[in-house]
């Protein structure tokens, strides 16, 4: 029945993925630090970040370290990370309405994010306190867990919370059949099941400068162990590419803030292009 080439058609024909990327390229990624820090809430403690990976957009806000609300929550030797991941109802590109409060995938993403952050933040510096991370997925075109992690990471940097490294995340997949290639940073189409089979999608988060893997997850069935190695390898390469983008954004933001302090610069919002008065 010749079913070996279907959604990977273009890949087999021209080494391009359906959206025109090469197999090893991540989507266009943009990072904005501190989009919500200057709110009028008066709550100076914290930071925020907006991360756009292709059409997937995640916004993260961080509060803390602050005192725990209940004493029973606090830990004597380190801070607790309180994470929530939610999505706006209009997030999926096909506008399928899911309840953001009960979506078990989002709750799971919250747990995964929490564990990744716990491995990254230097929690021992803030005993008996709490760091609150709120992520909202504003648009979802695949890879929302990775976008959420990257957003949280950027927001933590914006909040100035000490971390071991810039946590960066990227997913990788595997196009089987005749093409036999690994794909980096899957979009929604690539991670949705095809022909009744779950597509291979392996989200992965790492501390790129240390080379430590803090998260990886795969639900689909892979043909063999060697392929798992290859996919993981690809995901880590993707994480490094993401790290470059994050690092550039952080440097830009820092430069702008330095300029602001010296009274010479202005904050250029790289997103909207609007200038904020110093």
């Amino acid at each position, binding site marked *: 029945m010749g079913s070996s080439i279907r959604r990977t058609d273009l890949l087999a024909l021209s080494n391009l993925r359906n*959206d025109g990327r090469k197999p090893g*390229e991540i989507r*266009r990624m943009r990072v904005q630090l501190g989009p919500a820090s200057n709110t009028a809430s008066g709550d100076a403690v914290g930071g925020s970040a907006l991360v756009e990976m292709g059409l997937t957009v995640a916004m993260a806000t961080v509060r803390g370290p602050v005192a725990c609300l209940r004493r029973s929550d606090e830990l004597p030797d380190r801070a607790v990370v309180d994470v929530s991941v939610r999505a706006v109802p209009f997030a999926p590109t096909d*506008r399928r309405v899911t309840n953001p409060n009960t979506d078990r995938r989002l709750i799971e993403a919250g747990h995964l994010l929490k564990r990744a952050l716990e491995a990254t933040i230097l929690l021992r510096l803030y005993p008996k306190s709490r760091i609150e991370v709120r992520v909202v997925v504003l648009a979802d075109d695949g890879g929302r867990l990775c976008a959420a992690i990257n957003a949280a990471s950027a927001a933590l940097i914006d909040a100035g919370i000490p971390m071991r490294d810039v946590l960066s995340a990227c997913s990788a997949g595997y196009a089987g059949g*005749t093409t*036999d290639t690994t794909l980096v940073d899957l979009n929604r189409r690539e991670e949705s099941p095809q022909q009744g089979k779950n597509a291979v999608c392996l989200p992965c988060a790492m501390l790129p400068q240390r080379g430590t893997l803090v998260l990886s997850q795969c639900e689909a069935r892979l043909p063999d162990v060697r392929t798992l190695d290859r996919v993981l390898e690809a995901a880590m390469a993707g994480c490094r590419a993401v790290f470059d983008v994050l690092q550039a954004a952080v440097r830009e933001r820092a430069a702008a803030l330095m300029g602001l302090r010296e009274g010479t610069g202005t904050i250029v919002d790289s997103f909207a292009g609007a200038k904020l008065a110093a």
Partner: protein
Amino acid sequence: MMDEEESDQEMSDILTAPSLYLRPAFFKQTRKKGKIIKSVSERYLRDDLGLGCYYVDEGVSNRRAKEATVAKPRTIEDSNHLLSLLRTDKSNALVICDTNVLLHNLDILEQSQKVMPNLVFPQTSLVECRSNRMVAYDRAVELLREVGEKHHNRCCIFFPDMHHSQTAHIEEDEIESINDENDARIRNVAALFGEHLRGSNFRVILLTDDVASREKAKKTKHLYEAMSVRSWAKELDDLHPGLSLTDSVAQYGNPTSTKGGKSGSEEDIFRPHVGQSELSMGVKSGRYYRGAIRSERSSKGAYVTIRRGDERIAVTIENTLDRNRAIDGDVVAIELHSIEKWISTDTSKSNNIQGVERKKVEIADETAEPTQNELANVPDAISVDDKVRNLKPTGRVVGILRRNFASYSGSIYEKAKGSTSEVSEREKIALENEREHADGSATCVFFPTDTTIPPILIRTSQRDRFLGQRIVVTMDSWPSYSSYPLGHYVETIGPAGSKDVETEVLLQQFKIAHEPFPAQVLACLPPNDYKITMVPDRVDLRHLPVLSIDPPGCKDIDDALHCIVLPNGNYQVGVSIADVTHYVSPGSAMDLEAANRSTSTYLVNKRLDMLPALLTTDLCSLRANVDRYAFSVIWEVTPDAEILNVDFKKTVIHSIAALTYQQAQTFIDQPDNHNDDPQVGAVKRLASLARKFRKKRIDAGALTLASPEVKFVLDSESLNPTDVQAYALLEANALVEEFMLLANITVAKKILRHYPTLSVLRRHPAPNRAMFEGLISKARCRGFEIDIENSKRLADSLDAAVLESEPYFNKLLRILSTRCMSPAQYFCSGEFRPMDWHHYGLAAPVYTHFTSPIRRYADVCVHRLLAAAINVAPLPAHLSSKTYLHDLCANMNRRHRAAQLAGRASVQLHTLIFFANDSKEEDAYILDVETAEKSDPSVRVMVPQYGIEGQVKLPVSSDDPKLVRLPKENKIIYNGNVSMQVFDKVRVKIWVREIQAYQRELEIELLNPSFSLEVPNKRKADSTEVSKKKKKSRKKKKSMP
């Protein structure tokens, strides 16, 4: 991770260049609720794509050596690189194909590899092609990527224009619809190539049949030429004499191109089809119904199975106007007629009989022709509330959702040289539609061998070369002004009438898979050095004297028997069936292929297997003196054939002998002298048990039916038939049959107990009284009553009907009564009430097929069900889906029927060859006498020697006063002394006649009794003399070496 470094580089390009980035939004309807949703996706544009991709063969691609080698894409860097790849020839052209070319004119692209070596397939065309016709897309991709010996002088380029920064961008004002956008992009591709090839000696040609696109192309700077496929083919034909590519150009419903000067005055014959979107809306709202249309083979009617909720019903489409250009297999939307136009089931019978257009002479049928809806297990009548009687719903086709245009084999019409003055139906069609064109080509009428397909009009310039050839033609379109569809020539198979060509044609006609198994299927086979070993979860039966009994030369032995005496004096009887499911894992490529083929097909000169040969003739075949895996049913039986218990086991067996029927028969016939030979003993015990089982079955009302089967004796070298023999049936045949029936029934009960709604069973519906009426009245005029109240009474009345003077009479009656019954069908037990599971012919409440898994897929399913029932293997997921089983059964029934028909067609073909050289005289029996008033007097006769039957026209005009018709007695009397009654023995002459040049048919002529205006007695004497002479000459021939 070198690649990653590079890609990071590219990434930053993309990041810094946001203009190379599109966010196209599409609006589409959801399937379920019809809501309109917006879907946004990313599209990256890049400038590193060069001039597209070409393909190189990397040899054996990575680990899996068995997988077909796949060409890998390489980017063409610049124009010099491109020039080095392009092949030069007389035209020196680079051809860019648009969507419609790929959709309709792939044939020409495939055929023209020598003269049109440089092709560009833009991504846009391929994507559009994919969404329209998957088949065309697959072929296009294959064409693109095939780099082998055959294609090494071709340069096929794939151009990803949707992502290329120079072609993806389109001026805003050009875009009116998505189609315009696509066309504009393809023109961009042509312009890009034109620019790169400027100054070289290559022309860039955009092939498009879209006039508007050609007009727009003219406006651009003369970088490339835009041409229609026909004009380009014409140009190539002129450049290369002897080539006729124009014949293969698809014809659309464009009045100017097909109907010459007559355009404009054409009137629509058919109602126009409703547009696609309206159709899907209509289907959703319940105004229209959707279903695949199926034609009846024997009449003009067709039916569409529609679904209303969970219920399926077949809607009858009565005539060609209602059918509105739909051909067999199309998915159509239909509108039901108002209830007044529905046919009541009583009147429809007679309608049907009139509609049936029987072939003059053919191979005798075994059973009644099953209608298509019987094959699909769908009722075709529903009871209407206010009336008691059932009505058949009728409807008309309003539009076609998916066309099933395919290739058909057949030949174009040519008048036979010595043909009679009467105008046949074919000739009439040909005269109406054949015409010459100004450019020297002509429109011809092509008649497919498949009678469900209408004649096709093709335009060709080589008509004379096609005469007498079997050719393949693809259907292209069917415009509403044309009475017949338009098509184009694809290839020539060979001269009509040649045996191999005709065999090829009939395989194509009945859609029997005859191509070799694809690589994926062969990859599922066990390795060549595979050894059958003892596995712990199987029962070792290798010590038992298992033996098989089959026809001589049988390669696919799927059943073996054993019978031993137990210490307590009872017998242990075992039927071991080849364990095919051990090798065919559910859902594998091999399983899917087998499910699609459903059955092996046996032709006179070849066998087409359902499974690859390694399994069919070796690993699964239970040959003698080798270990084989088997699935065994083992009974403990008393010597009086009382079954005490039964057991089902996966086993390993070691057959001690593969007997032929003849050998087994000599064992049975040996005198009882307590022979020590285990083979003889086992066969004798089995035979005695079989006799007892048979008696029980007959007592329960099983029918003994007969079929006029014959067997050809083939010449060992030429495989031409040298003689025809009636199929000899020995007691050994009955022995094997008896135990197979027993195994099938036992297994059917077992799987039904475990899976009451998911079992694949076989049912044989009780015959319809109306179908038997003719036979009852015929038997009555010979003084016999046939009682069809139940199968027992029928069997008894058939047994009683014996004529001393005519020993063949009883067999004839059995043949005829078999034909009054519809054939047995596979079905899924959940779809019918238990009372409908009954197998009438075998008088069994449930029946299934278990014993031939090598050649039938139903048996494979039953094996899986049984394995699950005895907890050996889990039930595959798809076997627990009722809809899957329904489709599977429908396919199995259709394929089974097709295999039967192909087998019969093959017999017919060989009969024709057998009679081609000389005519023969034979005894025949009258089956039917035409007694209706004013009809042409004729009789239907059957020749048992050759298993053929045919209509014999009497040389008397219908209004001859001397002709007396006696409908009640099925008799006609001529001139007071020549009488013909049903079941009379007559003498006939069989010969071959040309109906159309190179197309021959068997003809039966009556010799005796003779109808002549002269004194009958004298003529009678004459004809017998002639026949004697003939007989003599035949004998002579035979005696010659």
